[in-house]
């Protein structure tokens, strides 16, 4: 056994800590990462030639970022590190990766998936107008390229990232035109009890809001997004309704949107891991035990790619998944280490549950989308098309609707639109969203060049 290496997919907080723990037990894992530089999303490193300080890039999290970067760099002699490379498929021979047109097969004895998450998107009329970004992309623009999505952006959606990104833009000298949260104050307060287990995180969030308010940025809660106005030249305004039902028009030149996160679960699906519907986050995820074991003996999962608990939890979960793997190989792991990590994660889970309550996915918005709104951008499928497939064509689940009306059939395979499309289908049939299933994953996970060459 175990002639082949352990492969860790993803070099963010979870992947890094998993690698570190395996190395400390004498293993030599291989870390494959889609990004060119280690760090993941939240601790994304700036490209070569940029020289902003950690403090400037990561604010209150500068210390954690520094430690995650330094610890990884120290691992380099003991691991295989394959950056800038995307895992796109699974065959009998191993994981299939691509870098440009170069395909490599990576045999493995086990895999730790630390694939992270991306923004959860809710379509709305006009969201395909140039100048509309996800919150994550708005943040990447700042961190990676030191530029902004516009001079006067509106940030809209819900979740802690909404305020963090708006605050980061303010720090960078760009004053947002507004921060519009679909969650009401009362709803946010309901989540506070769970979040109180991590007072520092709550304080940070409140600090961002206070700073935005002091700078005169309108912060509105309990809003309903209506549409984004603009033409080919770009966004000109966001139209939204306040809690009382009054329409507002906020002029802007760009918009960043996001409604919490969506775990990147495609690789686990290709590996045929069992999935469950997680009602807390209203999405499907690979089934795991508390330590990160999947339904498959050789696949472990950690971080936001399986449960949305944030970066600090991802570090603990990465380490714990590595411990689980070591235990399964009869390599001794101190009992108190496991217990300590589980306890940390329990706290993080309470906090995440509180966050999910405070900033809920507004499923009602999907149900209320006008028929002519494009939901699947890749295939230009509207909400009305999905409803037609759901009712007139009697599609009980999303893959049937996909076959008949094409939502999720394009380049992104439904990563962006899939959850909203499923909500629309379920609502149109008056059935619970869990019964509408989830879009099946297929290789290649990302578009694969037809001129690719297999190298070994």
């Amino acid at each position, binding site marked *: 056994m175990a002639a082949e290496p352990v492969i860790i997919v993803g070099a963010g907080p979870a992947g890094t800590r998993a690698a570190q723990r395996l190395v400390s037990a004498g293993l030599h894992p291989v870390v494959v990462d889609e990004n060119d530089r280690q760090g993941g999303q939240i601790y994304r490193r700036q490209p070569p030639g940029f020289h902003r300080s950690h403090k400037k890039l990561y604010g209150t999290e500068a210390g954690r970022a520094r430690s995650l970067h330094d610890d990884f760099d120290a691992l380099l002699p003991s691991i295989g590190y394959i950056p800038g490379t995307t895992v*796109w*498929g*699974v*065959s*009998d*021979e191993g994981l*299939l990766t691509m870098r440009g047109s170069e*395909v490599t097969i990576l045999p493995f004895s086990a895999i730790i998936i630390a694939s992270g998450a991306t923004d959860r998107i809710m379509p709305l009329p006009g969201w395909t107008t140039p100048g509309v970004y996800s919150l994550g992309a708005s943040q990447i623009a700042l961190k990676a390229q030191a530029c902004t999505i516009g001079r006067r952006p509106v940030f809209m959606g819900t979740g802690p990232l909404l305020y963090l990104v708006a605050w980061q833009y303010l720090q960078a000298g760009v004053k947002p035109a507004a921060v519009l949260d679909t969650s009401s104050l009362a709803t946010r307060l309901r989540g506070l009890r769970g979040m109180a287990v991590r007072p520092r995180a709550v304080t940070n969030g409140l600090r961002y809001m206070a700073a935005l308010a002091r700078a005169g940025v309108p912060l509105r809660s309990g809003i309903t997004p209506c549409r984004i106005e603009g033409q080919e030249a770009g966004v000109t305004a966001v139209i939204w309704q306040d809690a009382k039902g009054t329409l507002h028009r906020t002029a802007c030149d760009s918009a960043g949107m996001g409604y919490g996160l969506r775990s990147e679960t495609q690789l686990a699906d290709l590996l045929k891991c069992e999935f469950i519907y997680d009602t807390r986050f209203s999405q499907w995820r690979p089934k795991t035990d508390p330590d990160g074991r999947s339904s498959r003996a050789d696949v472990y999962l950690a971080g936001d790619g399986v449960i949305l608990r944030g970066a600090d939890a991802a570090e603990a979960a990465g380490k714990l998944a590595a411990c689980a793997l070591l235990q399964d190989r009869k390599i001794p792991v101190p009992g108190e280490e496991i217990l300590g990590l589980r306890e940390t994660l329990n706290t993080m889970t309470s906090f995440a549950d509180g966050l999910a309550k405070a900033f809920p996915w507004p499923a009602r918005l999907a149900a209320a989308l006008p028929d002519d709104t494009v939901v699947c951008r890749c*295939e230009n499928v509207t909400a009305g098309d999905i409803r037609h497939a759901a009712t007139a*064509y*009697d*599609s*009980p689940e999303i893959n*049937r609707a996909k*076959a*008949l009306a094409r939502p999720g*059939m*394009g*380049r992104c*395979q439904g990563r962006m639109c899939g959850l909203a499309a499923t909500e629309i289908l379920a609502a149109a049939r008056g059935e619970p969203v869990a019964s509408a299933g989830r879009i099946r994953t*297929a*290789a*290649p996970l990302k*578009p*694969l*060049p*037809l*001129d*690719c060459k*297999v190298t070994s």
Partner: protein
Amino acid sequence: MKTYLREPARADVIVVGGGLMGAATAFFLRTHGLSVILLERDLVGQAASGTNFGNVRRQGRYLPQLPLSNRSRDIWGRLPELIGEDAEFLPNGHIRVTTRPEDGERLEQYARDCKPYGLDLTIMTGDQARKMFPMVGPDITTVSYSPHDGHANPRLAAPAFGRAARRAGALVVERCEVTAISKDASDFVVEAANGGRYIAPMLQISGGAWGRWMAKSFGEDVPMAPQAPQMGVTEPLPYRIAPVIGSASGVTEEVVYLRQVKRGNIIFGGGRRGTADLVTKRARLDPMNTLRQMPCLARLVPAVSQLRVIRTWSGVEGYVEDSLPVMGASPTVSGLFYAFGFCGHGFQLGPAVGATMAELIATGSTDIPLDPFRMSRFTQDAATGPAATATRQT
């Protein structure tokens, strides 16, 4: 509490299996005025019918199959008037291309042989073909052009027939797993996992790769096994490739084919097949096969090498040992009919299989020759079965 016994549903005909064959049969049975119940384990057209390449191709087929295939081509052209939608049928031609002289000679021979069946093919040199189809690669030396063949969307065709059958009065029951089929003195009795019972004097088995299991209920066995076609699709680009382009190579790995849909994506398939499992209902797409297809596709149309593949898929297809389907009346059980095991070349045939089986069931006969596909080739004259060499590729 009292036990509720559901009344069994009765009809003239029960069709077990709602793929393209079963759905089309149900639809055409209604045009003959027979009442019909269509039972589908999952959703209509979900297995091989919905996952195949989408070829509406006559050329290259086993010659005695051409009358059935010609009938189907006629129905494909009349889908809007028959079922109210066209399933994206594009009769923009089909070309089979080769790079080797011996394969070219086979194409020429086939073009001569199929003429008496009413199929007119044009044989061209590579250069002649490139004048007409400039996307064809420089290695191609012989091309066989069938101008009235084309392609359609398999995801739409069977569901469209299913809905049309329902509109015409058929009882279409989806998510209905058949657990037992038996026959008493006069009637077939079908029991389903949902507790339903269905009774009819006539029954058609059109269970695709699962047809063998059902036929076995009546002691009739077919040597067949499931396999998984290896399909893929590229990102979209402007619509330029009118005909389906398929390799006519004698080497399995090289036999790939592609078609461009109106919205621009290029769909491809061929080469080695994968494994499929009848119990889990899963057909395996081996991404190594996708990698093997790539250089072969680029040989047909070099420009595709600049594209990217965005998705791959497979489906469970039933392959009979002699590469021909099982079609027609049971040799031993009266009222029992078969239409399954289409060996990956059934999509084009589907509409005519429905029309022909409905005709056979309703009137007792059909002008379409079905003898090569008879069940008795395995059960009665197994030792002297036809030496069929049907060309696969659908």
